């Protein structure tokens, strides 16, 4: 069973009638745990729409999304939110850190709605993983460099230990050196066994990915594996992240 699977996804904006704009046409995809996938395409090709559907954020006009076997869009809105929290970590274009919260608090955001202890410890651990020390963790984003902000965004995406990471143009607003650091981190996350799906229009960002899906006019134009690179990493790959299925979501 694929970790992430979409079947016959259609997305039409503005209704199904003559005024509607079809963003995705009958897209089928399977993404496995440990895969680092780049979704590429020109502006308006549908790649961000695909990411929003894969990220359980936008209900498709037709078709289904299965995450760990769960029919996501068959769930209620609130349970979709629970699923996002459990299964998905997001790195947004522009990073979207909350400017009035410190780096530590930004990373704690996904934990703030949970009733459990040890949240600061978990957040600090996550920040340490991406190379942000406790001193910098107490700063607001404006007091951090672009690269550090990117790292904080990744720490926030992984603090819940999700099996899937979604990244929307994660290096779009960063200089090349900083962008490289972020891409390396994403590679590491995939090597840990997480599925990483990255939307990008920049070919340089795809150097380390395992698979490239090219989209044009809402259709999958090309789905190619970069097997040699993937094979080279196979041995070095850590054990896959253990997916903790949500019993409540399976038995909706």
């Amino acid at each position, binding site marked *: 069973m694929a970790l992430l699977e979409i079947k016959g996804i259609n997305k039409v904006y503005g209704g199904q009638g003559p005024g509607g704009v079809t963003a995705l046409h009958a897209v089928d995809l399977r993404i496995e745990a440990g895969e680092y996938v780049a979704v590429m395409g020109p*502006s308006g090709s549908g790649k*961000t*729409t695909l*990411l*929003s559907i894969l*990220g*359980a*954020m*936008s209900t498709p006009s037709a078709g289904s999304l299965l995450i760990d076997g769960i029919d996501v869009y068959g769930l209620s*809105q*609130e349970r979709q*939110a*629970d*699923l*996002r*929290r*459990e299964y*998905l970590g*997001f790195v*947004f*274009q*522009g990073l*979207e850190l*909350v*400017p*009035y*919260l410190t780096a*530590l*608090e930004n990373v*704690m*955001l*996904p*934990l*703030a*709605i949970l009733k459990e202890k040890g*949240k*600061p410890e978990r957040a600090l651990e996550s920040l340490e993983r991406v190379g942000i020390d406790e001193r910098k963790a107490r700063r607001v984003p404006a007091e951090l460099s672009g690269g550090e902000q990117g790292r904080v965004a990744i720490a*926030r995406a992984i603090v*819940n230990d999700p099996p899937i990471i979604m990244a*929307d*143009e994660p290096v779009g607003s960063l200089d090349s050196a900083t962008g490289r650091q972020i891409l390396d981190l994403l590679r590491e996350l995939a090597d840990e066994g997480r599925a990483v799906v990255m939307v990008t229009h920049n070919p340089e960002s795809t150097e380390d990915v395992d698979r490239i899906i090219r989209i044009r006019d809402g259709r999958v134009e090309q789905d190619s594996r970069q097997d040699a690179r993937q094979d080279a990493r196979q041995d070095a790959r850590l054990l896959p992240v253990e997916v903790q299925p949500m019993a409540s979501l399976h038995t909706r």
Partner: protein
Amino acid sequence: MRLSKIPLRNVRRHPSRALLLGLVIAVTVAVTATLALVNLSAEEDLARQVDEYGANIVVIPRSEELPLSYGGVDLGGLTYDVEPLHMSDLDKIRGIEVAENVNRVAPKLVDVAEIDGTRVLAAGVQWEQEFGLKRWWHIRGEKPSGPSDVLLGAEAAESLGLTPGDQVSLKGESLRVKGVLEETGTDEDGILFLDLGVAQRLWDRGDEVSFIEVSAWCNTCPIETINAQIAAEMPYARVSSVLKMAESRELLIGQFRLFSMVLSGLMAAVGVLIVLSTTLGAVRDRRREIGVFRSLGYRRYHILEIVLAENLALGGAAALIGVGVATAVQGPLARRLAGVVNPLAPPPLVLAAVLVTALFVVLLATLYPAWAASRLSPSLALREV
């Protein structure tokens, strides 16, 4: 980190917006609370003044009257079976069940006095009770207090040609004019007041009284109850309430209350609109941020909680300031605007009610923007969608 940190930090992030909202809420609460407190003070004060000033119950002998006319000629009326009132009736009035509500009991004996060939209406009164009842009296000369003192109404003094300090002879008794009433515009202007005991002796009326004026506190006990209890004690007397005064008091208080309510309502409506529009604007500005929260797994009620908590925290703090301002200014304003002599100490229950109401109104004004925020899609976090 707790969820509550997000709204509190956001308040600090937008100080001008927070200041505007806080100011609107504080001013609305201050005005509303001040009006409510002044209204309460005025109500209490007016009630006390009306209760203390003047009689609101009159007790007169019950009599049967027969109108007489013969051959189309009106011959006046014939009053018969009159059972006069006596001094002992005063104790009956003071002995009713709600006696604590009886403030003044002022008996009077009325007859005609002739002084140097001029006839005037004379009223025997108990000085202390009478002055307690007629606080609006202004006296030229001295206040009478003894059995040989006389007080003249303005017209009576003029027609008798008497001034304070003059001696008068009434039925051979030498009395002294201690004071003259300034014009009141009532029947009292034409009356000669003298001591009740002296009047009873001069007119040989024993302990008889013509009528009794009663001033009662009706604030805690309806006048009808006091009236009924006096009537039960004195079945031979007719007990009447001076309802006009009570009605005019109610009217005055009612008008002030209505004014306060309309003004408070208008202020609250304007406040609600400002809170609503400002919060809607804030939600619009935070669409992407809310999208990020939703993408991180926040449920709709978490977003609702964040938006509501922000305004409720702000509203609570502003309402506290408003209540503080109202507490400070209500006394001076009640004195200056409503002429209240002793403004009430703001009752804690009223202040608590104002705070709760303010929070409820802020909650109502924030519900729609919060609901709209909670409906925002997580996909707003993605720039191109």
